[in-house]
């Protein structure tokens, strides 16, 4: 089936970009521009202290196919491509059927990546992941020990029978 233009990007620049490139000092907190709303970390990320992103530093693109859009189109592609201009980090989100949800999720993912980028090991994202990793290792270690003890117990039982 020929589907010309399905993946043609419709570019969208939402806000005027800040002039020039602002040098970022690692670990410095970013202050939002007065008129642009601060991006809130959503859902489970509320407990993490992440750098805020403003709409002014983001560039959004959508895969919607070319053509008039709106009623005249019924393509289901609603992939969001979101770029954080100062760092150059780009994320894609096509997780749900709703454009609005994909935008929210993309912002959440981007916020985590940007935080990691600037804060490195100081980032709550990094710390949370390391903690999860540790938990997993602990679980594995305990499971292994448990198996060992069971094996040992069985061997003892065999010896007792003899």
């Amino acid at each position, binding site marked *: 089936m020929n589907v010309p233009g399905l993946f043609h990007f*419709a*570019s*969208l*620049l939402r806000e005027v970009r800040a002039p020039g490139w602002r040098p970022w000092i690692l670990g410095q907190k970013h202050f939002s521009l007065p008129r642009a709303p601060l991006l809130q970390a959503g859902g489970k990320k509320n407990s993490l202290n992440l750098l805020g992103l403003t709409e002014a530093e983001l560039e*959004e693109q*959508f895969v*919607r196919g070319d053509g*008039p*859009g*709106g*009623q*005249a*189109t*019924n*393509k*289901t*592609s*609603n992939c969001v491509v979101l770029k954080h201009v100062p760092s150059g980090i780009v994320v894609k989100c*096509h*997780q*749900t*059927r*709703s*454009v*609005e*949800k994909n*935008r929210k999720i993309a912002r959440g993912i981007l916020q985590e990546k940007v935080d990691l980028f600037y804060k490195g090991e100081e980032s709550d994202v990094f710390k949370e992941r390391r903690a999860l990793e540790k938990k997993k290792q602990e679980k594995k270690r305990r499971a292994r020990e448990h198996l060992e003890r069971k094996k040992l117990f069985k061997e003892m039982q065999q010896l007792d029978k003899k």
Partner: protein
Amino acid sequence: MRGGVAVAPVRGPGPAASQFQSLSSKSLRTPLTAAQQEQIQQLSNKRLERMPVQYVLGEWDFRDLTLKMRPPVFIPRPETEDLVSLVVEEESLMHKKNSGPCFPVSAPHPVILEIGCGSGAIALSLLHKLPQSRVIAMDKEEAAVDLTRENAHRLQLQERIHVLHQDVSYGSAKQLLLWGPVDFIVSNPPYVFHEDMASLDAEILRYEDLDALDGGDDGMRVIKTILALAPSLLKDSGSVFLEVDPRHPDMVKDWLQAHPNLLLVLCAVHKDFCGKPRFLHIQKQSR
């Protein structure tokens, strides 16, 4: 299958899963049964006949809601999600202005009229997002009225919505004023220019209700009807929010200026997520 990550709601052993993310890792590894494969074949055949994915699956998401879809009722487009956001933002602004000791906070607010409700996407999203709101939704097609009611029941929102089977072009304002003048009129009216109808995709032409799309020669037939009716339905400073063709903003501005007796003014044009002028915010001036 096109787009999204939707997976056909294949019936079979294990919990029902309508989307990829909700499938357990076990069911992801289990090979499909013959019955499931047959079912997929049936669904794929429908898609090969150019049936839109949303009709093949029988459901689709709109903002936070999952709605039942059924041909020929118009399938909500992703752009329209932003139309809902605009109404919600305006309501929050109006609410801040009006709240105070002398304002009856207990009264339902806002009261919204939707013209051409289709599957109920806009109406039900607004009810979901604005817990104090009430909606009067109307459509000239019985199939749309039925589907909106069905979706309202599935989402347990039926107590706050009245769905009317009525054609806005041939009714009177009276029947729509059951809760008095409304705070908002919202609509995604048919706005395709008649000459553009023939070039629409087969998915649309073969399966969707074309009356939900065809706006007449200039695409403005229903838009004009709504705007002509708006002053008798709206409270002072009430708003009309419309989704339109990108060519319409200037045309609507001119038309409103040519009909000053309506006391309606175009106060904002908003772009959709592809950068096209798509949404009109029109306000009723107080006398």
